């Protein structure tokens, strides 16, 4: 047992990061399951991170209420985003959501209350490993239960063939709205936990770089499989630490792994039509 305790003491940060990244990957995978290339998770995460940090720092809220309010806010933001982009598909949706994410980041950079470029520091580290993994497990169970509902079938149908879905009476707009909002909620939980386990947040934490990362995890892990997304996140989060001995070659290896998986491991990637001819 002490071996485990020692391992934990030396790697608890990494373990927490894996849990958080898995949550973020799950949040994106819901949208991807509906065939929506909505790349705003980093922005939802950021909104929630800032709100929960502000509540904790200025109003001394404890983690649970701060987290819930923050996630509620990010869900609302996601819902609001769903409206203007409802007619966009494929790469156009991706670009629009990336633009949205950048705007959110710049707003955080320019406002006083978010600390501007200097960010918010001194956030109490309440989000310990049990909190992170507890949330992850609850979300995972929730998604698993959700996958057995009829609504989940509708989601899959929208992904496969939107017109066919519409013809059997599926409200495509509602499906897209809901998946985006769910993604917003989960990313929000991850964001609050992130703020409360990192002591300090800054707008750059929630920009295009982070979004790219989350997307890569989902693609590597398998777009339609939440479990795959979570595994992809775990692997790629651990990777930089695992290959630390490669020193300056780590970046190259990162890119190479990405390329190799994309080119040679179509499992999970094949047969998913996220892009349709109009």
């Amino acid at each position: 047992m002490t071996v485990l305790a020692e391992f934990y003491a030396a790697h608890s940060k990494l373990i927490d990061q894996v849990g958080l990244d898995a949550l973020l990957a799950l949040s994106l995978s819901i949208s991807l399951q509906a065939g929506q290339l909505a790349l705003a998770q980093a922005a939802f995460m950021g909104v929630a991170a800032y709100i929960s940090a502000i509540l904790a720092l200025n109003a001394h809220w404890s983690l649970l209420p701060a987290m819930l309010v923050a996630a509620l806010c990010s869900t609302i933001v996601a819902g609001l985003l769903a409206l203007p982009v409802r007619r966009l598909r494929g790469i156009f949706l991706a670009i629009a959501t990336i633009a949205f994410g950048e705007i959110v980041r710049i707003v955080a950079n320019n406002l006083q209350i978010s600390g501007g470029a200097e960010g918010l520091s001194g956030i109490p580290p309440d989000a310990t490993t049990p909190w992170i993994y507890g949330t992850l497990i609850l979300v995972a169970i929730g998604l698993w239960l959700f996958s057995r509902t009829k609504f989940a079938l509708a989601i899959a149908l929208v992904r496969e063939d939107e017109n066919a879905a519409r013809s059997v009476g599926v409200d495509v707009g509602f499906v897209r709205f809901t998946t985006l909002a769910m993604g917003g909620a989960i990313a929000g939980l991850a964001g609050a936990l992130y703020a409360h386990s990192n002591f300090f947040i800054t707008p750059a934490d929630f920009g295009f770089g982070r979004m790219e990362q989350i997307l890569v995890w989902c693609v590597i892990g398998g777009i339609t499989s939440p479990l795959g997304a979570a595994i992809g996140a775990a692997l790629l989060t651990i990777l930089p630490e695992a290959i630390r001995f490669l020193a300056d070659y780590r970046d190259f290896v990162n890119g190479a792994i990405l390329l190799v998986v994309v080119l040679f491991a179509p499992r999970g990637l094949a047969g998913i039509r996220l892009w349709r001819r109009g």
Partner: protein
Amino acid sequence: MKRPASYALALALTCALIPAAVVLPGLAATTKGPAAGKTVKIGVIADVTGSAAVYGLQQKDAYELANDDLKSGLLDAGGANLTFDVEDSASDGNQVANLFQKFTTDGSAMIVGPTLSGEARKGDPIAVLAKTAVVGTSTTADGITSIGPCVYRVSLAEAQVVPATVARTKAVWKYKTAAIIFGDDNAFTKTDGDIFKTQLEKAGVTIVDTETFHVGDKDFAASLTKIKAAKPDVIVLGALAEEAEKIIQQAATLGIKTHMMGGNGLNSTKIYDYAGPAAAGVVVGAAWSINGNYTGNTSFVQRFKKKYGVEPDQFGAQAYAAAQLSAQLVKDGKASKDEMCAALRDLRVAQTVLGPIAFDPGRDVKAAPVILQIEKGGFAYFH
């Protein structure tokens, strides 16, 4: 004729002795301190790759040079086996946290770094919880040292340097109006801009224009055109080297001949390498001068240039100063984690390439700012 011959001999002997006088003390410098024979490892966290690599690489180079110097005896650790374990945090917050965790659990005596203030805000708390001392060498934002009782800093904060910069330049240039241009999405440049603004206003200067840019911007024509139209007596740059050099050159292209000054970020040879004659006259409030003749500075600069082919900048110098500080602490017998924090607190003075440094009760470094002016392709002291 004996006299010329004996003079020649005396001259020859003196010339032979000079290099010996320089080299021999270095060789003979290793003494035996209380920690002799012990193995001491100090963890270094630097962004060797990623967006902050321009700074982190200098830091890594400085510590690697320090490792060489420890082996050859140029740096004296009192007979202890001191090494700096340099790890790359890749400008990634997660990796910063992981490295802090690594160094607080693997027996390292102390942590030096990280490269950026934001990273310090993420990582220093980890060291504080683990009661490991941290010495920052490039973190200059407010509130870093107040993160915990063992967080120290050898880098002069902008808040410490800017007042001197303003006072000295105002006395000579006698300006009444100023324009400020600073980066608004980087903690350092933003703080720099804010502090300059406060200090200038305190000194009775009217700010006639404020412009902002983003790190990575290359084109400053729009902002400079506006500044030119506002006709300030002095232009203040809250920027890091890459942007500062372009601002300076593009200002010259637009025919702006106003006095310019800036903070620590401009203390780099890149400024005059890039902007050439346009950079002449720019005043930089800094913490180190490449020409300064503090302990071992000249030889440090030479050795750095010889090993890496580039001159060290302030980041490299501050990193090496931390190495000198560490060697001194170890020489005094501090070899373990628990001893370092008290040792830093009790430090009277350390002789470094930055000059003699000590810490104030707030754990910030006590050192005099160096006000430099660029002239003829080099830095000179401003007068």
